[in-house]
């Protein structure tokens, strides 16, 4: 039996006002996901993303607002930079940079959320299990 892919989603509360709905949407396509709410996607630091991967997640995803709607003006833009910075570490380590990703969702917009779930599902299909998973959790 294949291990269930594990995705951790760090989501801005404005972009994803109902995290339970996102979790259900992930479950409906057969994914076990954990949703962590953030006051803004810019609250997510590069080291958070790396730490979550080190804990064994196969994929870490950040959801922010479209740049023009970010309440903190440039928070969503910064989030993109931080994901890219963490991806540089993965490349240096020889891990797939695609284990980190982000999308921008307009205040709970159902189409945007559905597109995010589809993208997460597609990424996880392509990725092998996280080779940096701690031994005891394999």
């Amino acid at each position, binding site marked *: 039996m294949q291990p269930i892919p594990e995705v951790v989603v760090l989501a801005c509360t404005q972009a994803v006002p109902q995290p339970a709905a996102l979790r259900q949407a992930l479950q409906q396509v057969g994914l076990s996901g954990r949703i962590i709410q953030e006051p803004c996607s810019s609250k997510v*630091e*590069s080291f958070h993303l790396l730490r979550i991967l080190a804990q064994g997640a196969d994929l870490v995803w950040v959801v922010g607002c479209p740049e023009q709607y970010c309440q903190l003006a440039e928070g969503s833009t910064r989030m993109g930079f931080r994901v890219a910075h*963490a991806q540089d*570490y993965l490349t240096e380590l020889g891990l797939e940079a695609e284990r980190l990703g982000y999308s921008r969702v307009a205040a709970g917009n159902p189409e945007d959320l559905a597109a995010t779930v589809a993208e997460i599902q597609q990424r996880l299909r392509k990725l092998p299990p996280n*080779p940096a998973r701690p*031994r005891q959790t394999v």
Partner: protein
Amino acid sequence: MIVGQRKSLQELQAMLSGYKKILLAGCDTCVAESACGGRRETAELAAALKLAFQMANQDVELQETSVDRQCIQEFLVDVVAAAQGYDAVLSLACGAGVQALVARLATIPVFPALNTMFLGETAERGVWLENCRGCGDCQLGYTGGICPISRCAKRLLNGPCGGASNGLCEINMARVYDPPVPCAWEQICHRLQDLGELERLYSVKPSMDWSKAGAGGPRRVVRPDQRL
């Protein structure tokens, strides 16, 4: 401010090979400003090394700590205390901070996580420029506040070499610099012209006394009034 750059994960992993409990010690002043050794970067490096060790199936315990300045005894004591019980310390301070820690940890090896680069200015977010070599004989008062020692590739003291093109130093022809390196002497001339002090350049400067720049051995500054 001291500017550094992180060593590659591959080099760090090789240096730390064999140690099972490692303390990462950040330094939250200069190298935090140059985004390579502060709390945030210490957390990033710890997480990245954890991933690296796990990928290599190595059980290594990593812990993080950070102090304001590793080059000051009063701040450093916290790292010394935290390091007890660890096999090794990986310091994210500049070379001065690493050595200050080494002097206080007789039996625990200390490794540098950074390559210390230069004394510089944050020109813009993510761009640091070398503006001072600590030569011990500051010329800024004669050159309109623009340093020919650190900013002229040839360290000339009496005007430009003649190789500049469109305001840029000729070293830009050798490889791509981002941002391009301007001709420091063109900048000096323009600056002194703007200040109406171009005549400062009419007197010839004698050769530098490089013994003050470190050629005379390790340098010391001793202030009796501060030693009390």
